[in-house]
Structure formats: structure tokens, C-alpha cells
């Protein structure tokens, strides 16, 4: 078959380029917003990487950030006696503000109180269990604070040396910083109180049973899996972010659809005489519609591919240059957006159908 659609588009290369760029921009907008959403939705992942899988918190604690949790300290041995519990780590956590070189900084301090012989990997110890007087920071916070490894932070009169800076502790609204448990006790200044107990359970252990037993040990407490606990952070982010995502994704779809629709419509109008000639030659409606839909799909496919490539590059660049912006590029999102763009292309190709139907083939006899 003669590729009439392709020839028509290539005959107007400038307009084709603008149309493809328009669709690519719409796809870029949509995918960037989605990658930001994915990035922000995964802010709780750090909780899941901590050494433990069940969190005991004060009843009514909706998550690590949103509410306070005060539990009686020194109950770790009793909790360790619950069937299915292998290890118990008291956790001290609190978001705090402090000054550093005249700048007010805010960070979410967390300390795991692990006994000396606790079966923890070297990586976990280095990352989450700094020595007394040390603090491990997230890269985003370190950038914001303007500190590097070896610098000292003064928090509530206690000097903390920056021992390690690593990625993955950015929770969008705040960043995690890991302290030694002794430093946390001194800085927080609430003796005999822990924020959470983090339990490592054996495979197949029943969370409900552990929760029931834990309540006997720690009054007015509740248990949540790490996944649930992390999910609380994601939920908070999603609650504030989803409506914005919805609007921007909708905007991207409308822009993309409008660009494809306009391109197809103008290309059809400009080629009205050609369509009239084809009608006069006996072309069926299906043949003519195939030309229109192919034109529309070519613009949709080229624009989508360009948009996906640009989005993948842009998401990576944004993550590197502005670490506060958490981006996570999902290829499944890209596939969905491309599918959406192609669906829009098909829908947009219906716009000029009436126009084609209305073309009088007798026009071919008019000079």
C-alpha cells in the first residue's frame, strides 16, 4: 500500500516536528509528575530496610512522623520472651530543629539501641548504628546543611561528628539522621521512655499473636508490620500529592490529545482536495479513515517515544541535580502513558471524520 499518511506528514516536516514535540511535551509533563509521585510514594522504604519487621508503638500512633509515641523503656527483655520474637531493639525517634552556623535545620533523628552481640549485618551497623558522638546523615540533608563527613553538628549542646553521608534517608517532608542510642537519650532528655520497639520475628510468626502478647508487656500499645508503618508515611505524602498529580496528569492528557487532534484535523483540512480525489477514484470510507488514523498514530507514537526518552533523562537529571525532588521512573508508567497517548490519537482521529464525510468528490471537477 502506498503510505499516503506518512507521505502527507513528511510533506510538512516543520508541522510534523511541532506536533511530535507537542505530544512529547505532554508525555514528558505526565511522566515527570508520575515519577515524582512514585519517588514521593516510596519515602517510607527506609523503614522497611531497618533491622526488624514489627513495630510496637503507643496506641493511636498513625506513623513515624505524624504523631508521638511514648512507651515505657526497659521492656525489651520481656518482649524478647514472646514466642516468635527473635530480637528487640528499643528505638528513639524525634524530629528536631537546631541551629548550625546560623541556619535553622530540621531533621528526623532516629536511634536503634542494639545490644553489643545483636545478630546484625555489618552494613546495618555502619548505616544505622553509629558510635557514640557520631551521626549518619542523608545526602539531601547534608547538602542543605552544607556539611561533610568529619564536620560537627551541635544538637542541644551535644557535639555530633558526621560519620557517614548516604542516600535513601530522604522522606520528602524531612530526612532521617541516625544517632547512637546514648546520644539520643541525652538529646531527647526523656529518661525511661522509648519511642518504639522494633522486633525481628521468626518466619511465619503471627503478627496478631505477637501484638496481643506485646500488649500484655507494653500497656496501651499496638503492633504494625514495617510495611504498614512505612505505608503510613506514603499515605501522608499521597494524600497531599495525589490531587496535584491528578490535575497535572489530566492536563498532560488534554494537551497531548489537543495537539494530536489539531494536527490530524489541520492535516485533513489541508488535504481536503486529496481526500476528494481519492473519493472520486472510489476510495471507501474505511480507506480514507485508515489514512487519518495512521497520521494520528504516527504523531502519537513518535511524540510518545520522544516524550518517554526525554522523561527518563529528565527524571534522572532532576534526581541528580535537585535531590529533594524524589523521582522514580517506572517503565510500566511509561507504557501506560504511551498507551494513553495512542488511545488519544485514535480518539483524536475521529474529529476530522465528519469533515471527510462531508467532502464532495465532485469537487475534483472544479478548477
Amino acid at each position, binding site marked *: 500500500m*502506498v503510505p*499516503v499518511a506518512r507521505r502527507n506528514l513528511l*510533506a510538512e516536516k516543520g508541522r510534523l516536528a511541532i506536533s511530535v514535540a507537542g505530544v512529547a511535551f505532554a508525555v514528558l509533563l505526565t511522566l515527570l509528575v508520575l515519577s515524582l509521585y512514585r519517588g514521593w510514594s516510596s519515602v517510607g522504604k527506609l523503614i522497611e530496610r531497618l533491622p526488624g519487621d514489627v513495630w510496637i508503638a503507643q496506641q493511636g500512633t498513625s506513623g513515624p512522623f505524624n504523631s508521638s509515641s511514648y512507651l515505657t523503656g526497659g521492656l525489651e527483655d520481656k518482649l524478647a520472651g514472646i514466642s516468635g520474637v527473635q530480637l528487640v531493639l528499643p528505638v528513639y525517634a524525634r524530629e528536631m530543629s537546631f541551629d548550625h552556623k546560623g541556619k535553622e535545620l530540621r531533621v528526623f533523628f532516629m536511634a536503634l539501641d542494639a545490644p553489643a552481640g545483636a545478630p546484625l549485618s555489618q552494613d546495618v551497623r555502619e548505616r544505622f548504628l553509629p558510635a557514640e558522638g557520631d551521626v549518619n546523615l542523608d545526602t539531601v540533608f547534608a547538602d542543605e546543611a552544607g556539611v561533610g563527613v568529619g564536620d560537627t553538628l551541635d544538637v542541644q549542646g551535644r557535639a555530633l561528628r558526621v560519620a557517614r553521608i548516604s542516600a535513601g534517608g530522604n522522606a520528602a517532608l524531612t530526612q532521617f539522621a541516625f544517632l547512637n542510642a546514648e546520644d539520643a537519650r541525652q538529646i531527647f532528655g526523656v529518661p525511661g521512655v522509648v519511642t518504639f520497639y522494633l522486633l525481628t520475628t521468626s518466619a511465619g510468626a503471627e503478627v496478631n499473636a505477637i501484638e496481643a502478647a506485646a500488649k500484655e508487656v507494653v500497656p496501651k500499645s499496638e503492633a504494625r508490620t514495617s510495611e504498614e508503618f512505612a505505608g503510613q508515611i506514603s499515605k501522608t505524602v499521597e494524600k497531599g500529592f495525589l490531587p496535584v498529580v491528578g490535575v497535572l496528569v489530566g492536563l498532560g492528557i488534554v494537551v497531548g490529545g489537543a495537539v494530536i487532534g489539531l494536527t490530524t484535523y489541520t492535516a485533513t483540512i489541508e488535504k481536503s482536495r486529496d481526500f476528494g480525489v*481519492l473519493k*472520486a*477514484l*472510489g*476510495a471507501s470510507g474505511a*480507506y480514507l479513515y485508515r489514512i487519518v488514523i495512521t497520521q494520528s498514530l504516527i504523531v502519537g507514537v513518535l511524540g510518545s517515544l520522544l516524550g518517554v526518552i526525554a522523561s527518563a533523562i529528565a527524571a534522572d537529571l532532576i534526581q541528580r541535580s535537585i535531590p529533594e525532588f524524589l523521582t522514580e521512573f517506572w517503565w510500566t508508567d511509561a507504557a501506560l502513558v504511551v498507551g494513553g497517548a495512542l488511545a488519544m490519537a485514535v480518539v483524536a482521529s475521529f474529529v476530522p471524520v465528519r469533515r471527510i464525510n462531508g467532502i464532495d468528490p465532485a469537487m*475534483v471537477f472544479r478548477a
Partner: protein
Amino acid sequence: MNDQRPILRVEHVSKVFGSGRTLVRAVDDVDFAASSGEMVVIMGPSGSGKTTLLTMIGGLLRPTSGRIFIDGIDVTAMRRGELPRVRRHHVGFVFQTFNLLDALSAQENVEVALNVAGVAGGEARERARALLVEAGLEGRLDFKAKDLSGGEKQRVCIARALANEPRLLLADEPTANLDTRHGHEVMELLHDLTRGQGRTAIVVSHDLRLREMADRVLWLADGRLRELGPGEEDPYLAAGRGRRETGRG
């Protein structure tokens, strides 16, 4: 090769536009037939209804009354949706303004007519190529339509008209946009295709030179058709004299 078998029969065809005081009878009770191998030239002043008649024969406009048969098929009795099939397989069009698709090459312009009729791929390419070679355009196959000269465009248009081997060729002022030499070449080509291949050609034109090549010349004035005899005087001169005598024009 005129075998006297009518490929086209036009029976008492009329076309009326408007109504009441604005009523215009563009074609008035036209009745004629054209046989295989015959080239019929229809002449007449501007606005006499020539193109309207051609448009109706081509199935692009419905007559107000009368019947048109192409290859024995009553196209006036067909539903609107059935007419494209007749145009695909039974009629070839040659236009005054060529009506080539500018974005396509010469070969693709012919090939597209085959595609429309369901012939695709290598077969369509080969047939398009053969038709253009026959039309003397071997060196212009890949030229974009817009890059061809007027004469070349008309040859491509003729090759396209022949692509689906129709029995009836309808040509609307095929030489109007061509110089004398190219106009003559195009008419010779049309003549050969009609006579040599047993087709019927209906050519609408102002061009008096076509009279020499025509088997019959029909004169259409004010929607009414009559046959011009071989010795009859130049109808345009006669029409002009008539207007002067009656004080019109």
C-alpha cells in the same frame, strides 16, 4: 476497434438545481450512447452543463431524472454507498487540473488508485510502473507530482485513470492547462488508448482541435445536446454570431 457495443448509455438525463425563480436546468433531457472504441467529444460554451453531465456519468452527482448505464449497470439506480465500486472498476477520470496527490511520487499516484481497488504490494507497484512506462514517463517514476511538468502530470493522470482497466474514460478539459504540443500528445495518447484498447472515452472540452480526433462531436448548449455533423461550421463561431444577432453577449 469500434465494436458498436454501448459502454455508456445516457437516457433522457436532466439535472435541475434550485427551485421556483432560482431554478436552473443545467442538463436538459440528454440522450446519447457511446460504444466500445469510440471517442466522443462534448463541446459547448462555458456554463452549458458539460461538467455537470460528466459528473453525473461518473457517478459523482445524481441526475434529477433519466438513467445512466455503464457497462450495462444502471448507476442511477444504485445506492450512494455502491457508487464508489463503479468508480473503482468501471470508470477512469482525467482532470483538467490533474488532481495528483502532491506528496506522492508519479508511481505512487498511480499505485494509490490500485490500492483503492484492493490491489496492493508488488503487483500494484509493477502495474503502476508499466502504465507510466507506457505513458512515456519511465524516467519520472520517482518524481514528486509537484515536480512534474503539466504534460507529465496529465500523463500520470491518464495512467492513474487506466490503472484499474476501466471500460469508460471520462476526461474533463484534458488539454486546457497544456501548451499546444503537450495538449496534442495527450490527446493522441487518449485516442490510442480508446481505439487500441477498446475503451470508450467521453471528453469534455472547448478545444476545437479535438474535433479531428473525435469519432463524434456533441454540442451542449443551455443543457441540451445535439450531434455536430462533420461538415458543420465551427460551433463557437456560430454561437457567437447567434449572440450578436440577438444582441446578447
